[in-house]
């Protein structure tokens, strides 16, 4: 006797579809304002360097040059995106001061009458740099004597005083000692660029009432507004951010990168300022998914039950952590996977290197855990002589199980999802798995 459903189970035309197919959807850079200036960035050509001197004299003579901005123009130059939710310390430089920590790091912002003039002036800025040894590997970065990337003296993000996010559940060493098999693996993943077809961009427009309207393709409009207010040390009510239409994001547009500088330039010039990434900036400078190295050690019984799992993970945050500390927390909470494992130990490190900063991407720390874990599951299945379906059914978590980070499982659907998947691909499951459910276990049931 359920009421008629008007939307569930039906295809509904998207409200933005007509705009997309007629080209009338307005994306950030489709806006044009009279007198609009263009902002381009002088970027670090080195992975790690000390700045000795910056010579702007030739750039300033380019016809159409309006002004240059350096860190001295930025009221609060060192920030942390997640500072809004209490993450410390402030670490990322809006514009570099004395040290460059990654290739592509912004040093000087050039504002000019045209994009061509801005690019010409950028090319004429002379940098006198002293190159420093750089580190590009998470485990190299943790060795004694490694080049130190951060301004506080070690290469890890600190979680409540610890160099890693830790999860401890049961006693893994005791369980390894009584396991029939030990299965170990190391899993390396590379950075991935989101490569949205629309590049990162914003336009900051001074309004007559003293406010600034900022058209942006940020995926995180209020994060960007609040961080811009902090960086520029102005009240948030002087900023009006207009977002919502994003030409592809996938996590690549959640960092606060273009809005603070474009707004600062609009304040300094009292003119609209556009700051849009080129395709090469999008590919080479914008945040990527982190590179990860994940060590997994599983203790397994001869019938395929995983009784202990130890995970040590390193995420390469690059030179600044952005959203990576949060991704590691999610990773640590999910590194045991959707499986009921009674003894688990996880150490997850957010490591600084001289690579381009990484940040959010779909799955956010969990995708990499899933990759490592599911390859482990297949290895275990092969070792104990089970098929890939069986190993997952017999270890699947159920409602009422406690995950290693003490979350009681609710609404588990792994078993039901696998049953549906098996039906879709025409795989006949044995009766014990066909009738299994995610309902809470009976007392004493494994």
């Amino acid at each position: 006797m359920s009421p008629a459903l008007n939307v569930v189970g039906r295809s509904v035309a998207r409200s933005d579809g007509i705009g997309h197919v007629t080209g009338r959807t307005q994306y950030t850079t489709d806006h044009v304002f009279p007198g609009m200036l263009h902002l381009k960035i002088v970027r670090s050509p080195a992975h790690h360097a000390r700045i000795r001197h910056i010579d702007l004299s030739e750039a300033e003579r380019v016809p159409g040059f309006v002004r240059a901005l350096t860190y001295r123009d930025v009221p609060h130059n060192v920030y942390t995106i997640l500072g809004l939710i209490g993450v410390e310390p402030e670490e990322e430089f809006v514009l570099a001061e004395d040290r460059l920590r990654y290739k592509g790091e912004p040093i000087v912002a050039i504002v000019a009458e045209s994009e061509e003039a801005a690019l010409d002036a950028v090319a004429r800025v002379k940098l006198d740099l002293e190159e420093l040894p750089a580190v590009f590997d998470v485990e190299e970065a943790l060795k004694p004597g490694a080049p130190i990337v951060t301004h506080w003296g070690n290469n890890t993000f600190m979680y409540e005083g610890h160099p890693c996010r830790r999860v401890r559940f049961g006693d893994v060493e005791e369980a390894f000692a009584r396991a029939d098999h030990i299965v170990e693996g190391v899993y390396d993943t590379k950075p991935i660029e989101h490569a949205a077809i629309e590049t990162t961009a914003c336009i900051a427009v001074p309004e007559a009432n003293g406010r600034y309207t900022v058209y942006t393709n940020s995926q995180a409009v209020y994060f960007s507004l609040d961080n811009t207010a902090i960086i520029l040390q102005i009240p948030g009510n002087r900023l009006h951010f207009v977002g919502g239409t994003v030409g592809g994001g996938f996590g690549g547009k959640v960092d606060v990168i273009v809005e603070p500088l474009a707004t600062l330039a609009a304040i300094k010039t009292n003119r609209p300022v556009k700051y849009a990434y080129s395709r090469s900036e999008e590919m080479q400078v914008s945040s990527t998914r982190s590179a990860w190295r994940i060590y997994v050690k599983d203790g397994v019984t001869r019938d395929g039950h995983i009784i202990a799992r130890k995970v040590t993970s390193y995420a390469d945050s690059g030179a600044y952590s952005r959203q990576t500390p949060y991704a590691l927390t999610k990773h640590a909470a999910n590194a045991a996977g959707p499986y009921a494992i009674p003894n688990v130990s996880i150490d997850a490190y957010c490591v600084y290197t001289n690579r381009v900063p990484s940040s959010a991407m779909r799955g956010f720390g969990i995708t990499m855990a899933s990759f490592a874990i599911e390859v482990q599951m297949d290895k275990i299945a092969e070792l104990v002589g089970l098929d890939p379906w069986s190993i997952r059914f017999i270890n699947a978590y159920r409602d009422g199980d406690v995950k290693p980070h003490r979350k009681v499982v609710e609404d588990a659907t792994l078993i039901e999802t696998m049953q549906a998947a098996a039906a879709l691909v025409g795989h006949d499951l044995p009766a014990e798995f066909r009738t299994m459910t995610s309902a809470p276990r009976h007392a004493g049931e494994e």
Partner: protein
Amino acid sequence: MASTIVTFELAGREVEVMVKPMTTLQAVLRYQLGFTSVKEGCRQGGCGSCTVLVDGEPMMSCLLPVEDVAGRRVTTLETITPDEGVHPIQQAFIDHTAFQCGYCTPGMIMISKALLDHDPHPTREAIVDALAGNLCRCTGYEPIVAAVEGAAQATAGKGAPR
């Protein structure tokens, strides 16, 4: 270098623009004439989001100096959109939800129009081949291929409007 005046046909009328040498058709359409369906995903001929038709042939307007279209007919997504309703290819993209963020959509529709104008009954292989230069990061392409197949069914025999 002195600017010159370039004349071409757009939306059924002659337009005149004053440009510096080597200004791209993409820049003229977007920033002088306000035809912002012409997108700029890469400005280096790599993504297809700026695809327009020149005398019916698909071209990436980001690589095309506007002098090269002097005296020729330029077709954009704006110019194929009827005053009322939508073009059959546009309707097929809606019906198949052949977009997510929408940024590649104008280029996808223009390359599809060029294909269907030449070949009203394309094979799936011909559709995939035609779309090869147009990148989409959201859909995985399947809904777009389905939309072009649907549009071919809807337009075949009648010929696609203008």
